[in-house]
């Protein structure tokens, strides 16, 4: 049942990514490109995706805190709270290089 439940969750997550346009690099880059704000070409879609996901997750997690999960003995909430160097360094690496996977213009930059 655990495997089936997470298959469903993965499937719903994938549809969410797809419907929202967040599988398209141009949509993500369109949000990250803040220089496009003055010219009117900025795409705030990613912010709406995040906001909608956060509202649903926030309410759902409040419910999830009250009961044990259906197919496990207990919820595994993250225990780490430290804001340390690995957190910052890892996040910088993630943010920087994710763009380079996405953006062809890196080629222009490289040459």
């Amino acid at each position, binding site marked *: 049942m*655990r*495997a089936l*439940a*997470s298959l*469903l*969750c*993965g*499937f*719903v*997550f*994938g*549809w*969410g990514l*797809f*419907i929202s*346009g967040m599988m398209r690099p141009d*949509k993500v880059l369109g949000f*990250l*490109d*803040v220089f496009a704000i003055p010219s*009117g*070409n*900025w*795409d*705030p*879609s990613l912010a*709406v*995706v*995040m906001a*909608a*996901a956060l509202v*649903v*997750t926030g*309410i*759902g997690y409040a419910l*999830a805190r009250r009961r*044990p*999960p*259906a197919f496990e*003995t207990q919820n595994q909430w*993250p225990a780490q*709270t430290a*804001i340390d160097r690995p*957190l*910052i360094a*890892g*996040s*910088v*690496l*993630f*943010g*920087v*290089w994710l763009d380079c*996977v996405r953006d*062809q*213009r*890196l*080629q*222009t*930059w490289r040459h």
Partner: protein
Amino acid sequence: MANFTPVSAAIGGALIGLSAVLLMLLNGRIAGVTGIFAGLIDPLGTDRGWRATFIAGLIAAPLSAVLVGYTLPVPQMPTSLLVVIAAGLLVGFGTRLSNGCTSGHGVCGIARLSPRSITATAVFMGAAIVVVALTRHVFGG
């Protein structure tokens, strides 16, 4: 803002949230995609079953979208495969170092109001915005 698609963004975002909630209600787990995948390929990993099916569902979703008549975005491949491989490795390394990515920190963590996740999300979003500004407007032109 001709490219703004608020309706599909809201629907898609809600689905992502629903997935995160369901995974917690059913399996008691955080829906952090890179974390789930990392546990799957960890040689010392023990609970691979649910991780494998989550990833399978994730990949099946856009494929099923094709079956119901959607067209998939064509992956845009930069000319240098080497850059993509190196960047992919660094993305993976970064998310393991910080223990989370857009889904784990950005959605699940912020929904829990975790200061750690809020910090991580601000840092990777900020870093991504700086890189796009540099590559598009300073070096790219």
